[in-house]
């Protein structure tokens, strides 16, 4: 499951740009995740601040 650390997230949207499943959406400062997430982890790697993590 993709965990979003909202205290770290700087809401830049880079994760949304790389998500192959269109599972992420940035609503101003709030990153939304839909059920389409495949836990591929691409978003965790692009995140400049390390706010995303795929947790087992």
């Amino acid at each position, binding site marked *: 499951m993709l965990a979003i650390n909202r205290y770290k997230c700087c809401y*830049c*949207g880079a994760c949304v740009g*790389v998500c192959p499943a269109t599972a992420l959406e940035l609503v101003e400062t709030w990153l939304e995740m839909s059920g389409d997430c495949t836990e591929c982890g691409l978003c965790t790697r692009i*995140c*400049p*601040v390390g706010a995303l*993590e795929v947790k087992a």
Partner: protein
Amino acid sequence: MKCDLAVVGAGPGGSMAAKTAAQAGLEVVLIEKRQEIGDPVRCAEGVSKRGLSDMVKPEPRWISAEVRGARIYAPDGTSIVMSEDKSGTEVGYVLERKIFDRALAMEAARAGARVMVKTRALGLLRKNGTLKGLQAMCMGESLQIEAPLIIGADGVESKVGRWAGIDTALKLKDIESCAQFLLQDNSIDDQYCEFFLGNSIAPAGYVWAFPKGENLANVGLGILGSRSRPGEAVRLLKEFVKTRYPEGKVVEMVVGGDPCSGPIESTTADGVMLVGDAARQTDALTGGGILNAMQAGIIAGDVAAKALAAGDVSRTGLREYETRWRETLGRHIARSFEFKEFFIKLTDDELNQLIGSLRNEDVSNMDLRAMLKVLFRLNPKLRWELRHLVI
């Protein structure tokens, strides 16, 4: 709500598109999901003076600093200087995007476009397969915007293209993970934009320091997504700042993803055009995207008016947009992409050698392209690997 054209995203690309279309007589609605246009910034804010002046009249209130040129540092610390004055280089002005973006949106409004903030596109409206407009949300309320034509200028996190069937998802090798501090430090050179190369400081990217006046600078870096780990961009930036500006004070933090994919296959669908970062129209080598977005926005706004007048907003009817942007900015982006693909493979030794090869050349009056030409002349390996390119 009904209009001729709905533009999603009020960055420089969207605002120029809206302004151009409104000036051509279209009823335009420009929506922006944020409550404040231009903020938070996700940008290093450097633009070429000439490139900007070709499209808008520069105003002092949105220019933070004017620089004399660029200084590029090799990993070994040697540097070369490129001047701004002779030919419009990549940087000349460092903007204040928070003011600049608003000024462009206001220009669109003055031209007759209706600007709506805190209004987010949720999807495309279709009837019997034909595009009818946008489903949006404005201040938490559902809003339908009926429009035969939509311009998606919705940035790196663009959805408009995906909804229209254009796959704009970026591979990790086609996006830079970026972090930037607005830094206050007495050692900041306010005359030059500085670029630092090196695989340890910014793998497959670079560090920049763009002066903002009064001993302030946008100091940031980008690293290629495929060479990034979670949080790597900020970690590397902190390291660089600690070494280069030990007394530096961070007064703002900026992060973002910068597309560097080169031109994508398609930026149009029936009733849809993509502009700027949404169309991945950033320069793959420099990462610069402001002017490209504006230029594409102007073309899209113009084509929108023509297509509506001709009564054909199908993908075929919008072909002129594809053709025009690809023939202009598209060529630069494609070439930059090839250069980027070459440069990211270089080791620090090779980078030192490349910059070192310019030691006895006068590059002071050159722009990036002219300097690349000299590099070609001096470096057989570069010439060979990029032999298919005409620069």
